[in-house]
């Protein structure tokens, strides 16, 4: 290997360690056969996972996270797709301005969005709840879902819809029989990306929930009692779910591109 290549390899390795070491530590010490998740590693055990699956609070929160993530992502993906479809097909005069306006919330921090929603809900007399959290997650995920769908609605897709209309399909038939099935991998990918973000979103979930909480909030509460390999196990489950979803999204998008 030439020196240049050695340097590059060292740099890449260092970057990978920097990024993945914390996660590796988290996962490794979830298997700790001991009471604290700190070195040295005392041996391999699944007892903390048993404890997680026996912890009703954690399981309930996990269920809440699935429901909030599932519903908010379905709403965000549907609204995002419809917004993208409407914008791409009706081509209003200032389409670019509308596009930027729809995507602008991406630049606002979750803390600001969460505070804004908290104040708004307070003013409207709506109590903090999982519904409020779900609405918050629609707010943060809608721009992303819109952007993903909009990027896939090009001139070729428009032509395919035209072909359907040319053969006698109404606008609604073209949308339901052609556009949605054709973009189905993209819509699903948007859904799962939204779900992944909702799944481990903490700030908004913390600010807008009350008695029923999502998984990240429960983990946060448990952290007050100090470090425990049980938290590592819970965190590992969150992380594994996210990774699985990301892989699913990659597969879906690859499939969508092959079709296109």
């Amino acid at each position, binding site marked *: 290997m030439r020196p240049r290549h050695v340097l590059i390899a060292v740099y890449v390795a260092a970057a990978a360690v920097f990024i993945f070491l914390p996660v590796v530590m988290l996962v490794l010490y979830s298997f700790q056969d001991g009471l604290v998740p700190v070195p040295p590693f005392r041996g391999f055990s699944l007892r903390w996972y048993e404890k997680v699956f026996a912890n009703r609070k954690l399981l309930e929160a996990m269920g809440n996270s699935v429901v909030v993530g599932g519903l908010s992502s379905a709403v965000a993906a549907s609204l995002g797709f419809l917004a993208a479809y409407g914008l791409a097909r009706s081509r209003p005069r200032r389409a670019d301005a509308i596009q930027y306006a729809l995507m602008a919330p991406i630049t606002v921090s979750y803390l600001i969005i969460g505070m804004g929603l908290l104040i708004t809900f307070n003013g409207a007399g709506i109590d903090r709840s999982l519904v409020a959290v779900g609405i918050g997650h629609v707010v943060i995920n809608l721009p992303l879902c819109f952007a993903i769908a909009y990027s896939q609605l090009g001139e070729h897709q428009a*032509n*395919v819809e*035209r*072909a*359907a209309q*040319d*053969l*006698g399909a109404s606008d609604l038939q073209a949308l339901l029989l052609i556009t949605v099935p054709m973009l*189905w991998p993209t819509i699903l990918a948007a859904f799962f990306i939204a779900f992944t973000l909702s799944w481990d979103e903490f700030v908004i979930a913390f600010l807008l929930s009350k008695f029923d909480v999502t998984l990240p909030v429960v983990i946060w509460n448990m952290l007050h009692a100090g470090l425990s390999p049980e938290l590592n196990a819970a965190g590992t489950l969150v992380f594994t779910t996210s990774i699985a979803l990301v892989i699913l999204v990659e597969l879906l998008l690859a499939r969508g591109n092959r079709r*296109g």
Partner: protein
Amino acid sequence: MAEPLVRLSGVVKRYGETVAVERIDLDIGAGEFVVLLGPSGSGKTTVLSMIGGFTAPSEGRIFIGGEDVTDLPPARRPKATVFQDYALFPHMSVRNNVGFGLAMRKVAKAERDARADAMLKLVGLDGFGDRGIHQLSGGQRQRVALARAIAVEPKVLLLDEPLGALDLALRRQMQEELVHIQKRLGTTFVHVTHDQEEAMSIADRIVVMRAGRIEDVGAPARVYLQPATLFTATFMGESNILPGEVVEATSSVAWVKTAIATLAVPAQAAIGTRVNLSIRPEQLVIGRAAEGTEDLGTGRVSETSFQGTHLRARVAMQAGGGELLLRAPATLDLAVRGTIQLSVRPVDVVLLKG
């Protein structure tokens, strides 16, 4: 022509200040294979899109089968389109693609499938019904697009540069097949292309367009051999254009003085008119003027290139310093820098006014 199947009457298309199509009148007869031919920006695709209903004309009316369809959406016009990028439905099988139009017409599944399979057979894709679109080659997709469009038995089939993405050999083959299918079905075809060879080989009638206007309309042989305008003469293939002035005229013959020679042309023109003469390279005759030909003088061969079917040569003419393009038989041994004598039959010279 009896009742035209498609009629464009005073059709104009403007995009803001830009005029894409400038007041077009065109009648297309039932069963005709018409090709709209022109360079990009000539408005040919816009015309097709207006017949299809995807672009609304700024002025004028469009009729199909005697019915005014100007205000009808694409779905309600009795036509079908073969799109340039095929626009097949990627999530459906080949059979369901072809049967889609029939499904929209509420044809029962069994009959729809039978008709889709018959259409696939017609385009040479017998047994491909169960395949997915992404399993097909470009040429096969092209055939599916064609089968899908003719499956609904349109009165007129619109083809938007459908062969543009195919390689030359496949293109030739598809051109022949298009003609066969068109003659067999008797459907009116309106085909858009920028390729004049394609236009000549498939069309019953060519509509030459430039800058939103119709330059010339006629059978391929007429448009090629007797072009109506200078643009048509040059766009339909290589041509020698000789600018000149009418110096003498009778009611049927004009004598045109050009830099190379003065030629008697069978055409009507007033004395003093500035005109262009067009002579196709293959119509130049090598040798001294014989009975019935006009002398063009001698020239020196400056360049030759072997083209397989013929020999292409540039000849610098002695008189006037002009240059003529010549197509000679491929077997002719033409020496570069050799001197040759050229002549032409007056009927092969086209007089272009303006």
